[in-house]
């Protein structure tokens, strides 16, 4: 394998760059722009048991160095994902893909994962216990170690594929939650999901987002994400996938030094559809510049000293 390659829960990735769920659809829109097989993998659109329209619009607000979204997990539901989306994905992507799954009860998660499990192309499950957009939904699982562990165990029981739990940053201490997931059988954790935020329109004096609050992402959140990846990676013995504000090859390296085994790129795909291939292309030169031979050697490099 090349100098960019990493291993994520037993599966080799050609490089650590992974478009994050909710910013990359099911891949085929981006496949019109570039060969998406250059990616390490990608995490597909958060899938739920039933179809969801999501929240009312406006769902998007701009911020300094970032954006807020309150899409609310719009997706066609697991049945249509299986019959309509995955065949299209298969036609343009030949690597194992990461299946992002959300739910509103422990049973929902297990049901959706079980449905998807037979799909050969799914390499990993990424279980979203942290989406801040859905009232009474995902948020509650990700903010309690017990609830996060329950979801992890339920999903663990229905698949032999690697299970990554995607964690919420909207908690006092992310470490006990990550540890609870590890103890419940998670093969890895990914973090951070978006930070709960809001904007107010000065003309209307009302929140910009119809749902009032939404998830804040973009370059502004990188330092928060790095801190949480660092804290988590030091505390657990399973791989951590780092994300939050990553937009450059330097950011990827910084995430890996903080302890990430692979790195997801989210909002950057929305402002520059070519963000990921640009990052991948820039990685070797950037590694040279900082004297890095192989990316896998730098994971957690910032722990010492």
């Amino acid at each position, binding site marked *: 394998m090349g100098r960019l390659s990493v291993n994520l829960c037993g599966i080799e990735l050609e490089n650590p760059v992974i478009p994050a769920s909710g*910013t990359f659809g099911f891949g085929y*829109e*981006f496949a019109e722009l570039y060969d998406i097989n250059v990616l390490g993998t990608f995490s597909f659109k958060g899938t739920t048991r039933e179809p969801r329209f999501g929240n009312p*619009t406006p769902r998007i607000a701009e911020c300094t160095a970032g954006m807020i*979204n309150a899409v609310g997990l719009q997706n066609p539901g697991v049945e249509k994902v299986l019959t309509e989306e995955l065949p299209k994905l298969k036609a343009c992507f030949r690597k194992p893909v990461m299946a992002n799954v959300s739910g509103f009860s422990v049973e929902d998660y297990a049901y959706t994962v079980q449905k998807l499990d037979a799909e050969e192309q799914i390499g990993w499950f990424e279980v979203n216990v942290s989406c801040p957009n859905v009232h009474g939904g995902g948020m509650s699982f990700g903010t309690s170690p017990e609830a996060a562990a329950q979801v992890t165990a339920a999903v663990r029981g229905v698949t032999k594929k690697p299970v990554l739990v995607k964690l919420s940053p909207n908690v006092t201490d992310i470490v006990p939650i990550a540890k609870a997931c590890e103890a419940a059988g998670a093969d890895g954790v990914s973090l951070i999901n978006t930070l709960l935020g809001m904007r107010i329109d000065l003309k209307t004096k009302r929140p*910009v987002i119809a749902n009032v609050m939404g998830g804040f992402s973009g370059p502004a959140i990188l330092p928060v994400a790095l801190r949480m990846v660092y804290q988590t990676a030091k505390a657990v013995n399973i791989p951590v996938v780092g994300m939050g504000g990553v937009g450059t090859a330097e950011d990827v390296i910084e995430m890996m030094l903080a302890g990430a085994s692979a790195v997801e790129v989210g909002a950057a795909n929305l402002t520059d559809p*070519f963000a990921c291939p640009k990052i991948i292309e820039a990685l070797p030169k950037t590694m040279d510049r900082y004297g890095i031979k192989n990316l896998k050697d730098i994971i957690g490099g910032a722990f010492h000293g």
Partner: protein
Amino acid sequence: MKNVKFMIQSNLSLTASVYEMRLAGDTAGILPGQFVNVQVPGFYLRRPISVCGCEEGLLTLVYKTVGHGTEAMARMQPGDTPDLLTGLGNGYDLSKAGDAPLLIGGGVGVPPLYYTAKKLLERGVTPAVILGFNTKDEIFYENEFRALGCGVTVTTADGSYGVKGFVTDALPERYTYFYACGPKPMLKAVCAKTASGGELSLEERMGCGFGACMGCSIQTANGPKRVCKEGPVFKKEDLLWED
């Protein structure tokens, strides 16, 4: 969709808050009713702007300053080279026009209809045009449409110019199909009062502009659709107006 650097040739005000930007660059494949997504220095998200004019190598955008981003766009100078995503959205289906199409534009919804008019004329049909504004000072592009040879009716809500009232107060006797763009209340009224089939271009707050983020979804008669990808142009019968 294409990712293209353009060079600004001019960026001039048409009214107190409406600007016309002409840009040189690769315009191949841009259809009437489509939009571009403009990167504005200093702003995280791009600004989606409908295509007002498009010739080989020359793009015209007419936009309204509604916030800091479009205000910054208005300050961009000739020689600046903004990064654009072009060819976004579906565009108007001109094959439906018939022999007497009608273009209905309200305020900053007028620009995409100019490129549409030009393309209809290339197809040998001359559209009738209704342009609606709040007041006389806000009128733009009336003369541009007249110069194309279109019959133009201008309405103003306050009666300061043309027909007093709304675009729906000026509907002609006969038209075969309509193409509309404007504020939501206008589009709703157009759907209710037009006798023919037609297509309407919607506006929504967007994240990416190319179908990735699902930020601009609406419910339609055929299920959820993304304004940026399956739209911004929707058929009259596809739109739901329950709110």
